[in-house]
Protein backbone atom coordinates (compact mmCIF):
# COMPACT_ATOMS: atom_id res chain seq x y z
CA UNK A 1 0.00 0.00 0.00
CA UNK A 2 2.71 2.37 0.94
CA UNK A 3 4.60 1.21 -2.12
CA UNK A 4 1.72 2.35 -4.33
CA UNK A 5 1.74 5.78 -2.77
CA UNK A 6 5.45 6.00 -3.34
CA UNK A 7 5.05 5.41 -7.05
CA UNK A 8 2.16 7.82 -7.32
CA UNK A 9 4.29 10.45 -5.65
CA UNK A 10 7.04 9.77 -8.17
CA UNK A 11 4.64 10.07 -11.11
CA UNK A 12 3.25 13.33 -9.81
CA UNK A 13 6.74 14.68 -9.58
CA UNK A 14 7.68 13.50 -13.05
CA UNK A 15 4.60 15.07 -14.59
CA UNK A 16 5.16 18.26 -12.71
CA UNK A 17 8.69 18.51 -14.01
CA UNK A 18 7.55 17.63 -17.51
CA UNK A 19 4.91 20.31 -17.39
CA UNK A 20 7.44 22.78 -16.20
CA UNK A 21 9.90 21.70 -18.80
CA UNK A 22 7.46 23.00 -21.35
CA UNK A 23 8.26 26.47 -20.28
CA UNK A 24 11.73 25.92 -21.63
CA UNK A 25 10.47 25.06 -25.10
CA UNK A 26 8.77 27.94 -26.91
CA UNK A 27 5.82 26.96 -29.02
CA UNK A 28 4.88 30.08 -30.97
CA UNK A 29 7.53 32.77 -30.82
CA UNK A 30 6.23 35.15 -28.17
CA UNK A 31 8.40 38.05 -27.22
CA UNK A 32 8.73 38.51 -23.51
CA UNK A 33 8.74 42.01 -22.15
CA UNK A 34 10.44 42.16 -18.76
CA UNK A 35 8.74 44.69 -16.51
CA UNK A 36 9.15 46.03 -13.03
CA UNK A 37 5.73 45.11 -11.69
CA UNK A 38 6.07 47.72 -8.99
CA UNK A 39 6.64 50.84 -11.12
CA UNK A 40 3.40 52.66 -11.75
CA UNK A 41 2.50 54.36 -14.02
CA UNK A 42 4.86 52.74 -16.51
CA UNK A 43 4.26 49.16 -15.43
CA UNK A 44 2.27 47.66 -12.61
CA UNK A 45 -0.36 44.98 -11.91
CA UNK A 46 -3.99 46.08 -12.08
CA UNK A 47 -6.69 45.02 -9.69
CA UNK A 48 -7.51 41.98 -11.79
CA UNK A 49 -3.97 40.73 -11.64
CA UNK A 50 -3.04 41.68 -15.19
CA UNK A 51 -0.01 43.72 -16.21
CA UNK A 52 -0.95 47.32 -16.90
CA UNK A 53 0.69 50.69 -17.36
CA UNK A 54 1.80 53.09 -20.06
CA UNK A 55 4.59 50.87 -21.32
CA UNK A 56 2.50 47.71 -21.17
CA UNK A 57 -0.30 49.23 -23.21
CA UNK A 58 2.11 50.88 -25.64
CA UNK A 59 3.93 47.62 -26.31
CA UNK A 60 0.62 45.79 -26.73
CA UNK A 61 -0.37 48.34 -29.38
CA UNK A 62 3.00 48.11 -31.12
CA UNK A 63 2.82 44.32 -31.10
CA UNK A 64 -0.54 44.35 -32.79
CA UNK A 65 0.51 46.99 -35.28
CA UNK A 66 3.78 45.33 -36.21
CA UNK A 67 2.44 41.78 -36.14
CA UNK A 68 4.07 39.91 -33.22
CA UNK A 69 2.92 38.41 -29.93
CA UNK A 70 4.08 39.79 -26.62
CA UNK A 71 3.87 38.66 -23.01
CA UNK A 72 4.69 40.84 -20.03
CA UNK A 73 6.85 39.18 -17.40
CA UNK A 74 7.36 40.73 -13.96
CA UNK A 75 11.08 40.60 -13.26
CA UNK A 76 13.25 41.78 -10.39
CA UNK A 77 14.53 45.19 -11.47
CA UNK A 78 18.07 44.86 -10.23
CA UNK A 79 18.47 41.66 -12.22
CA UNK A 80 16.61 42.80 -15.30
CA UNK A 81 19.57 43.42 -17.59
CA UNK A 82 21.16 40.03 -16.78
CA UNK A 83 17.75 38.49 -17.43
CA UNK A 84 17.69 40.17 -20.83
CA UNK A 85 21.18 39.05 -21.70
CA UNK A 86 20.48 35.50 -20.55
CA UNK A 87 17.50 35.41 -22.89
CA UNK A 88 15.00 34.96 -20.09
CA UNK A 89 13.27 38.05 -21.47
CA UNK A 90 13.52 39.63 -24.93
CA UNK A 91 12.99 43.32 -24.25
CA UNK A 92 12.59 45.80 -21.43
CA UNK A 93 9.77 48.31 -21.72
CA UNK A 94 9.31 49.58 -18.19
CA UNK A 95 10.26 53.21 -17.81
CA UNK A 96 13.95 52.41 -18.26
CA UNK A 97 16.28 55.40 -18.31
CA UNK A 98 18.94 55.57 -21.01
CA UNK A 99 22.47 55.87 -19.64
CA UNK A 100 25.91 55.58 -21.22
CA UNK A 101 26.70 52.63 -19.02
CA UNK A 102 23.55 50.80 -19.95
CA UNK A 103 24.23 51.51 -23.62
CA UNK A 104 27.31 49.33 -23.28
CA UNK A 105 25.16 46.35 -22.31
CA UNK A 106 22.03 46.84 -24.38
CA UNK A 107 20.65 48.78 -27.32
CA UNK A 108 17.92 51.36 -26.81
CA UNK A 109 14.98 52.33 -28.97
CA UNK A 110 14.03 55.92 -29.69
CA UNK A 111 13.09 57.75 -26.49
CA UNK A 112 9.47 58.28 -25.58
CA UNK A 113 9.58 60.23 -22.35
CA UNK A 114 11.76 62.21 -20.04
CA UNK A 115 13.04 61.35 -16.61
CA UNK A 116 13.31 64.22 -14.21
CA UNK A 117 14.62 63.09 -10.83
CA UNK A 118 13.39 64.88 -7.72
CA UNK A 119 13.23 64.43 -3.99
CA UNK A 120 9.90 63.82 -2.29
CA UNK A 121 9.10 64.22 1.38
CA UNK A 122 6.07 64.01 3.61
CA UNK A 123 3.52 66.66 2.83
CA UNK A 124 4.05 68.49 6.09
CA UNK A 125 7.85 68.16 6.26
CA UNK A 126 10.03 71.25 6.43
CA UNK A 127 12.98 69.69 4.65
CA UNK A 128 14.51 71.58 1.74
CA UNK A 129 16.79 70.13 -0.92
CA UNK A 130 19.77 71.97 0.53
CA UNK A 131 19.12 70.67 4.02
CA UNK A 132 18.57 67.19 2.60
CA UNK A 133 22.12 67.09 1.36
CA UNK A 134 23.53 67.45 4.84
CA UNK A 135 24.71 64.82 7.28
CA UNK A 136 22.15 62.79 9.27
CA UNK A 137 19.49 63.02 6.59
CA UNK A 138 18.28 59.69 5.21
CA UNK A 139 17.40 59.22 1.57
CA UNK A 140 15.49 56.32 0.09
CA UNK A 141 15.94 55.03 -3.47
CA UNK A 142 15.05 51.96 -5.54
CA UNK A 143 17.87 49.48 -5.84
CA UNK A 144 19.47 49.02 -9.25
CA UNK A 145 18.18 52.26 -10.75
CA UNK A 146 20.07 55.04 -12.49
CA UNK A 147 19.22 57.38 -9.65
CA UNK A 148 20.69 55.00 -7.09
CA UNK A 149 23.88 54.83 -9.09
CA UNK A 150 24.05 58.53 -9.83
CA UNK A 151 23.58 59.47 -6.18
CA UNK A 152 26.28 57.00 -5.12
CA UNK A 153 28.80 58.18 -7.69
CA UNK A 154 28.10 61.86 -7.82
CA UNK A 155 27.10 62.69 -4.32
CA UNK A 156 28.14 60.14 -1.74
CA UNK A 157 31.53 59.56 -3.28
CA UNK A 158 32.02 63.28 -3.72
CA UNK A 159 31.73 64.05 -0.05
CA UNK A 160 28.05 64.43 0.72
CA UNK A 161 27.29 62.79 4.01
CA UNK A 162 23.62 61.93 3.94
CA UNK A 163 22.68 58.25 4.24
CA UNK A 164 21.24 56.31 1.32
CA UNK A 165 18.81 53.45 1.94
CA UNK A 166 18.02 50.98 -0.87
CA UNK A 167 14.59 49.47 -1.51
CA UNK A 168 13.25 46.75 -3.77
CA UNK A 169 10.86 49.19 -5.45
CA UNK A 170 10.04 52.89 -5.69
CA UNK A 171 6.70 52.54 -3.88
CA UNK A 172 8.50 50.89 -0.95
CA UNK A 173 10.92 53.80 -0.75
CA UNK A 174 8.03 56.27 -0.69
CA UNK A 175 6.24 54.13 1.87
CA UNK A 176 9.18 54.52 4.20
CA UNK A 177 9.10 58.27 3.66
CA UNK A 178 5.55 58.19 4.94
CA UNK A 179 6.63 55.96 7.83
CA UNK A 180 9.34 58.35 8.72
CA UNK A 181 12.16 55.87 8.39
CA UNK A 182 13.75 57.99 5.68
CA UNK A 183 13.42 61.74 5.36
CA UNK A 184 13.05 61.83 1.59
CA UNK A 185 13.12 59.61 -1.47
CA UNK A 186 14.67 60.09 -4.90
CA UNK A 187 12.11 59.25 -7.58
CA UNK A 188 11.12 60.51 -11.01
CA UNK A 189 8.52 63.22 -11.40
CA UNK A 190 6.30 60.72 -13.20
CA UNK A 191 6.35 58.42 -10.18
CA UNK A 192 5.93 61.31 -7.75
CA UNK A 193 2.96 62.81 -9.60
CA UNK A 194 1.28 59.44 -9.91
CA UNK A 195 1.60 58.92 -6.18
CA UNK A 196 0.34 62.40 -5.34
CA UNK A 197 -2.64 61.86 -7.67
CA UNK A 198 -3.53 58.81 -5.62
CA UNK A 199 -3.87 61.02 -2.58
CA UNK A 200 -0.80 59.85 -0.72
CA UNK A 201 0.43 62.77 1.43
CA UNK A 202 3.81 63.56 -0.11
CA UNK A 203 5.20 66.54 -1.96
CA UNK A 204 8.03 67.25 -4.36
CA UNK A 205 10.65 69.52 -2.87
CA UNK A 206 12.79 69.87 -5.96
CA UNK A 207 15.60 68.43 -8.08
CA UNK A 208 18.75 67.39 -6.31
CA UNK A 209 21.14 67.75 -9.19
CA UNK A 210 20.75 64.67 -11.36
CA UNK A 211 20.54 65.75 -14.99
CA UNK A 212 17.36 64.96 -16.88
CA UNK A 213 17.32 61.83 -18.94
CA UNK A 214 15.13 60.00 -21.39
CA UNK A 215 13.38 56.65 -21.23
CA UNK A 216 13.37 54.09 -24.02
CA UNK A 217 12.90 50.38 -24.63
CA UNK A 218 15.92 48.09 -24.33
CA UNK A 219 16.84 45.01 -26.36
CA UNK A 220 19.89 42.75 -26.62
CA UNK A 221 22.71 44.15 -28.70
CA UNK A 222 22.40 41.41 -31.31
CA UNK A 223 18.64 41.81 -31.74
CA UNK A 224 18.77 44.50 -34.41
CA UNK A 225 15.65 43.20 -36.10
CA UNK A 226 13.57 43.50 -32.96
CA UNK A 227 14.98 46.97 -32.33
CA UNK A 228 13.94 48.14 -35.77
CA UNK A 229 10.44 46.75 -35.28
CA UNK A 230 10.10 48.50 -31.94
CA UNK A 231 11.44 51.79 -33.27
CA UNK A 232 9.05 51.75 -36.18
CA UNK A 233 6.13 50.78 -33.98
CA UNK A 234 6.94 53.43 -31.42
CA UNK A 235 7.18 56.09 -34.12
CA UNK A 236 3.79 55.12 -35.43
CA UNK A 237 2.28 55.05 -31.97
CA UNK A 238 3.59 58.47 -31.07
CA UNK A 239 1.98 59.85 -34.22
CA UNK A 240 -1.47 58.71 -33.17
CA UNK A 241 -3.85 60.54 -30.83
CA UNK A 242 -3.86 57.32 -28.74
CA UNK A 243 -0.39 58.19 -27.50
CA UNK A 244 -1.61 61.42 -25.93
CA UNK A 245 -4.62 59.60 -24.47
CA UNK A 246 -2.43 56.94 -22.93
CA UNK A 247 -0.13 59.52 -21.41
CA UNK A 248 -3.07 61.36 -19.91
CA UNK A 249 -4.71 58.21 -18.67
CA UNK A 250 -1.61 57.16 -16.80
CA UNK A 251 -0.86 60.64 -15.55
CA UNK A 252 2.44 60.87 -17.38
CA UNK A 253 3.21 64.51 -17.83
CA UNK A 254 5.95 65.64 -20.14
Amino acid at each position, binding site marked *: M*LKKRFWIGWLVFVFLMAG*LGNSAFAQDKVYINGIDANYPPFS*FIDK*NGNPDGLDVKAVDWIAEEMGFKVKHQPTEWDAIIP*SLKNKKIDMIASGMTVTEERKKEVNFSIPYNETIMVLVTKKDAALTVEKAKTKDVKWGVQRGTTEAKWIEENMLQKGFQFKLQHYDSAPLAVEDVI*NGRVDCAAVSTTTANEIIDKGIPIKIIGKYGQPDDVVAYAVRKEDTQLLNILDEGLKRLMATPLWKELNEKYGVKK
Partner: protein
Amino acid sequence: MLRKIVLKRALVENFNWWSDDGNPLALLIFFNRNPVLPVSDLKFEPKQGFTVCGLTQGTSMIPQGLTAIKEGLPYLLEGALVNIAVVLGAMALGFALGLPLAVGHVYGNRKTRSLIGIYILFFRGIPLLVLLFLFYFGLFSLSGINASAFTVAIVVLGLISAAYQSQILRGAILSLPEGQMKAALSIGMSKKKAIFFVILPQALRLSIPGWSNEYSILLKDSAVAYALGVAELMARAHHVASRTYQHLYLYLTAGFIFLLLTYLGTKGLNVLYKKVGIPGYLR
Protein backbone atom coordinates in the same frame (compact mmCIF):
# COMPACT_ATOMS: atom_id res chain seq x y z
CA MET B 1 -29.59 53.42 22.96
CA LEU B 2 -27.62 56.17 24.60
CA ARG B 3 -24.60 53.91 24.57
CA LYS B 4 -24.90 53.45 20.82
CA ILE B 5 -24.97 57.20 20.24
CA VAL B 6 -21.94 57.76 22.45
CA LEU B 7 -20.10 55.00 20.66
CA LYS B 8 -20.95 56.45 17.27
CA ARG B 9 -19.66 59.83 18.30
CA ALA B 10 -16.47 58.38 19.67
CA LEU B 11 -15.85 56.51 16.46
CA VAL B 12 -16.46 59.58 14.32
CA GLU B 13 -14.07 61.64 16.37
CA ASN B 14 -11.42 59.04 16.29
CA PHE B 15 -11.55 58.24 12.65
CA ASN B 16 -12.03 61.78 11.58
CA TRP B 17 -12.47 61.45 7.90
CA TRP B 18 -15.38 62.03 5.63
CA SER B 19 -16.38 62.26 2.03
CA ASP B 20 -17.48 65.38 0.26
CA ASP B 21 -21.00 65.43 1.63
CA GLY B 22 -19.83 65.03 5.18
CA ASN B 23 -20.99 61.48 6.00
CA PRO B 24 -18.79 59.70 8.47
CA LEU B 25 -17.90 56.85 6.26
CA ALA B 26 -16.48 54.84 9.12
CA LEU B 27 -19.98 54.27 10.31
CA LEU B 28 -21.06 53.16 6.88
CA ILE B 29 -18.47 50.46 6.96
CA PHE B 30 -18.84 49.30 10.49
CA PHE B 31 -22.57 49.49 10.86
CA ASN B 32 -24.08 49.26 7.42
CA ARG B 33 -21.51 47.06 5.79
CA ASN B 34 -21.20 49.30 2.78
CA PRO B 35 -18.80 47.48 0.51
CA VAL B 36 -16.48 48.98 -2.01
CA LEU B 37 -15.59 52.62 -1.67
CA PRO B 38 -13.91 54.31 -4.59
CA VAL B 39 -10.52 55.36 -3.39
CA SER B 40 -10.65 58.76 -5.02
CA ASP B 41 -13.76 59.77 -3.10
CA LEU B 42 -11.93 59.83 0.17
CA LYS B 43 -9.96 62.65 1.61
CA PHE B 44 -8.40 62.04 4.94
CA GLU B 45 -6.59 63.68 7.77
CA PRO B 46 -4.67 61.34 9.97
CA LYS B 47 -5.17 61.78 13.66
CA GLN B 48 -2.27 63.69 15.14
CA GLY B 49 0.62 61.57 16.20
CA PHE B 50 -1.17 58.27 15.69
CA THR B 51 1.19 55.60 14.57
CA VAL B 52 0.25 51.97 13.95
CA CYS B 53 3.24 49.80 13.28
CA GLY B 54 5.06 52.81 11.91
CA LEU B 55 2.33 53.73 9.47
CA THR B 56 1.08 57.15 10.40
CA GLN B 57 -2.07 56.98 8.34
CA GLY B 58 -2.82 53.41 9.34
CA THR B 59 -6.12 53.76 11.06
CA SER B 60 -7.66 56.27 8.75
CA MET B 61 -6.85 54.17 5.71
CA ILE B 62 -8.73 51.10 6.92
CA PRO B 63 -11.42 51.24 4.23
CA GLN B 64 -8.81 51.72 1.51
CA GLY B 65 -6.82 48.91 3.01
CA LEU B 66 -9.82 46.63 3.03
CA THR B 67 -10.67 47.66 -0.51
CA ALA B 68 -7.17 46.89 -1.65
CA ILE B 69 -7.41 43.48 -0.01
CA LYS B 70 -10.83 42.77 -1.41
CA GLU B 71 -9.84 43.68 -4.95
CA GLY B 72 -6.49 42.02 -4.78
CA LEU B 73 -7.62 38.84 -3.04
CA PRO B 74 -8.20 36.69 -6.14
CA TYR B 75 -4.81 37.78 -7.44
CA LEU B 76 -3.19 36.96 -4.11
CA LEU B 77 -4.88 33.59 -3.82
CA GLU B 78 -3.66 32.69 -7.29
CA GLY B 79 -0.21 33.50 -5.98
CA ALA B 80 -0.80 31.21 -3.02
CA LEU B 81 -1.48 28.45 -5.51
CA VAL B 82 1.94 29.12 -7.01
CA ASN B 83 3.49 28.72 -3.56
CA ILE B 84 1.64 25.46 -3.06
CA ALA B 85 2.81 24.23 -6.44
CA VAL B 86 6.39 25.09 -5.56
CA VAL B 87 6.08 23.36 -2.19
CA LEU B 88 4.53 20.21 -3.63
CA GLY B 89 7.09 20.04 -6.41
CA ALA B 90 9.96 20.61 -4.01
CA MET B 91 8.65 18.07 -1.52
CA ALA B 92 8.20 15.47 -4.23
CA LEU B 93 11.70 16.06 -5.57
CA GLY B 94 13.04 16.12 -2.03
CA PHE B 95 11.41 12.79 -1.31
CA ALA B 96 12.39 11.14 -4.56
CA LEU B 97 16.01 12.10 -3.97
CA GLY B 98 16.00 11.99 -0.19
CA LEU B 99 14.94 8.36 0.04
CA PRO B 100 17.89 6.90 -1.86
CA LEU B 101 20.17 9.35 -0.04
CA ALA B 102 18.90 8.13 3.32
CA VAL B 103 19.23 4.46 2.41
CA GLY B 104 22.70 5.08 1.02
CA HIS B 105 23.68 6.98 4.11
CA VAL B 106 22.62 4.15 6.41
CA TYR B 107 23.47 1.05 4.39
CA GLY B 108 26.06 2.24 1.92
CA ASN B 109 29.80 1.72 1.93
CA ARG B 110 32.27 4.31 3.13
CA LYS B 111 32.64 6.04 -0.24
CA THR B 112 28.88 6.33 -0.71
CA ARG B 113 28.44 7.70 2.75
CA SER B 114 31.09 10.37 2.40
CA LEU B 115 29.71 11.50 -0.98
CA ILE B 116 26.29 11.81 0.53
CA GLY B 117 27.79 13.69 3.44
CA ILE B 118 29.26 16.24 1.02
CA TYR B 119 25.93 16.69 -0.74
CA ILE B 120 24.18 17.30 2.55
CA LEU B 121 26.82 19.76 3.70
CA PHE B 122 26.54 21.73 0.47
CA PHE B 123 22.77 22.05 0.42
CA ARG B 124 22.35 22.65 4.11
CA GLY B 125 25.28 24.98 4.44
CA ILE B 126 24.62 27.54 1.70
CA PRO B 127 21.81 30.08 2.14
CA LEU B 128 18.73 29.54 0.03
CA LEU B 129 18.97 32.90 -1.68
CA VAL B 130 22.54 32.26 -2.74
CA LEU B 131 21.62 28.86 -4.16
CA LEU B 132 18.65 30.30 -6.04
CA PHE B 133 20.76 32.94 -7.75
CA LEU B 134 23.58 30.48 -8.33
CA PHE B 135 21.27 28.09 -10.13
CA TYR B 136 19.16 30.65 -11.96
CA PHE B 137 21.88 32.87 -13.33
CA GLY B 138 24.77 30.48 -13.19
CA LEU B 139 24.19 26.83 -13.73
CA PHE B 140 21.06 26.92 -15.80
CA SER B 141 22.48 29.53 -18.15
CA LEU B 142 25.77 27.72 -18.50
CA SER B 143 24.13 24.48 -19.42
CA GLY B 144 22.01 26.20 -22.01
CA ILE B 145 18.72 25.06 -20.55
CA ASN B 146 16.40 28.02 -20.38
CA ALA B 147 14.43 27.22 -17.26
CA SER B 148 11.81 29.51 -15.81
CA ALA B 149 12.24 30.97 -12.36
CA PHE B 150 9.42 28.68 -11.23
CA THR B 151 11.30 25.58 -12.34
CA VAL B 152 14.54 26.76 -10.78
CA ALA B 153 12.75 27.49 -7.50
CA ILE B 154 11.34 23.97 -7.42
CA VAL B 155 14.64 22.37 -8.34
CA VAL B 156 16.69 24.27 -5.79
CA LEU B 157 14.16 23.91 -2.99
CA GLY B 158 13.83 20.24 -3.91
CA LEU B 159 17.55 19.62 -3.72
CA ILE B 160 17.74 21.33 -0.35
CA SER B 161 14.70 19.45 0.89
CA ALA B 162 16.30 16.18 -0.20
CA ALA B 163 19.21 16.90 2.10
CA TYR B 164 16.92 17.51 5.06
CA GLN B 165 14.46 14.76 4.23
CA SER B 166 17.26 12.24 3.97
CA GLN B 167 18.24 13.08 7.53
CA ILE B 168 14.67 12.72 8.75
CA LEU B 169 14.33 9.34 7.10
CA ARG B 170 17.77 8.26 8.24
CA GLY B 171 16.89 9.08 11.82
CA ALA B 172 13.72 7.06 11.48
CA ILE B 173 15.57 4.08 10.02
CA LEU B 174 18.19 4.16 12.76
CA SER B 175 15.51 4.31 15.43
CA LEU B 176 14.14 0.92 14.40
CA PRO B 177 15.33 -2.04 16.47
CA GLU B 178 18.29 -3.91 14.98
CA GLY B 179 16.23 -7.07 15.24
CA GLN B 180 13.95 -6.03 12.38
CA MET B 181 16.76 -6.34 9.85
CA LYS B 182 18.06 -9.51 11.52
CA ALA B 183 14.67 -11.21 11.38
CA ALA B 184 14.19 -10.22 7.75
CA LEU B 185 17.60 -11.65 6.83
CA SER B 186 16.97 -14.80 8.86
CA ILE B 187 14.03 -15.79 6.67
CA GLY B 188 16.18 -15.46 3.62
CA MET B 189 15.51 -11.92 2.46
CA SER B 190 18.27 -10.03 0.71
CA LYS B 191 19.30 -6.72 2.25
CA LYS B 192 17.48 -4.90 -0.54
CA LYS B 193 14.24 -6.76 0.09
CA ALA B 194 14.60 -6.27 3.82
CA ILE B 195 15.01 -2.52 3.33
CA PHE B 196 12.06 -2.29 0.96
CA PHE B 197 9.57 -4.56 2.72
CA VAL B 198 10.48 -4.26 6.37
CA ILE B 199 12.58 -1.19 7.13
CA LEU B 200 11.13 1.48 4.87
CA PRO B 201 7.41 0.84 5.55
CA GLN B 202 8.10 1.44 9.20
CA ALA B 203 10.63 4.24 8.79
CA LEU B 204 8.41 6.17 6.39
CA ARG B 205 5.56 6.17 8.88
CA LEU B 206 7.92 7.42 11.55
CA SER B 207 9.06 10.22 9.24
CA ILE B 208 5.66 11.81 8.83
CA PRO B 209 5.99 14.19 11.79
CA GLY B 210 9.35 15.28 10.35
CA TRP B 211 7.71 15.95 6.98
CA SER B 212 5.18 18.13 8.71
CA ASN B 213 8.05 20.30 9.83
CA GLU B 214 9.65 20.19 6.39
CA TYR B 215 6.39 21.27 4.76
CA SER B 216 6.06 24.39 6.88
CA ILE B 217 9.69 25.30 6.25
CA LEU B 218 9.31 24.80 2.50
CA LEU B 219 6.16 26.91 2.47
CA LYS B 220 8.01 29.76 4.09
CA ASP B 221 11.04 29.28 1.87
CA SER B 222 8.82 29.38 -1.22
CA ALA B 223 8.29 33.07 -0.51
CA VAL B 224 12.01 33.58 -1.17
CA ALA B 225 11.38 32.61 -4.78
CA TYR B 226 10.10 36.17 -5.00
CA ALA B 227 13.72 37.17 -5.46
CA LEU B 228 13.83 35.35 -8.79
CA GLY B 229 10.69 37.06 -9.91
CA VAL B 230 8.32 34.13 -9.39
CA ALA B 231 4.84 35.61 -9.17
CA GLU B 232 3.97 33.94 -5.91
CA LEU B 233 2.03 35.31 -2.98
CA MET B 234 4.74 37.59 -1.60
CA ALA B 235 5.57 39.12 -4.96
CA ARG B 236 1.90 39.65 -5.70
CA ALA B 237 1.30 41.34 -2.38
CA HIS B 238 4.08 43.72 -3.37
CA HIS B 239 2.50 44.30 -6.78
CA VAL B 240 -0.84 45.24 -5.28
CA ALA B 241 0.82 47.35 -2.61
CA SER B 242 2.75 49.27 -5.25
CA ARG B 243 -0.48 50.17 -6.94
CA THR B 244 -2.54 50.95 -3.85
CA TYR B 245 0.02 51.95 -1.24
CA GLN B 246 -1.66 49.69 1.32
CA HIS B 247 1.51 47.84 2.25
CA LEU B 248 0.47 47.00 5.81
CA TYR B 249 -2.84 45.44 4.88
CA LEU B 250 -1.47 43.51 1.99
CA TYR B 251 1.45 42.02 3.85
CA LEU B 252 -0.84 41.18 6.74
CA THR B 253 -3.14 39.39 4.35
CA ALA B 254 -0.26 37.56 2.73
CA GLY B 255 1.03 36.57 6.14
CA PHE B 256 -2.39 35.34 7.13
CA ILE B 257 -2.73 33.26 3.99
CA PHE B 258 0.68 31.68 4.64
CA LEU B 259 -0.42 30.92 8.17
CA LEU B 260 -3.58 29.29 6.92
CA LEU B 261 -1.69 27.17 4.41
CA THR B 262 0.77 26.04 7.07
CA TYR B 263 -2.04 25.10 9.41
CA LEU B 264 -3.98 23.18 6.79
CA GLY B 265 -0.91 21.37 5.55
CA THR B 266 0.31 20.23 8.91
CA LYS B 267 -3.21 19.24 9.91
CA GLY B 268 -3.47 17.18 6.73
CA LEU B 269 -0.19 15.43 7.42
CA ASN B 270 -1.38 14.72 10.94
CA VAL B 271 -4.46 13.04 9.56
CA LEU B 272 -2.28 10.99 7.23
CA TYR B 273 -0.08 9.99 10.13
CA LYS B 274 -3.04 8.70 12.12
CA LYS B 275 -4.46 6.95 9.09
CA VAL B 276 -1.38 4.91 8.26
CA GLY B 277 -0.51 4.37 11.90
CA ILE B 278 0.18 0.83 12.97
CA PRO B 279 -2.66 -0.37 15.20
CA GLY B 280 -1.69 -0.84 18.76
CA TYR B 281 1.18 1.59 18.86
CA LEU B 282 0.73 4.95 20.50
CA ARG B 283 3.04 6.59 17.95
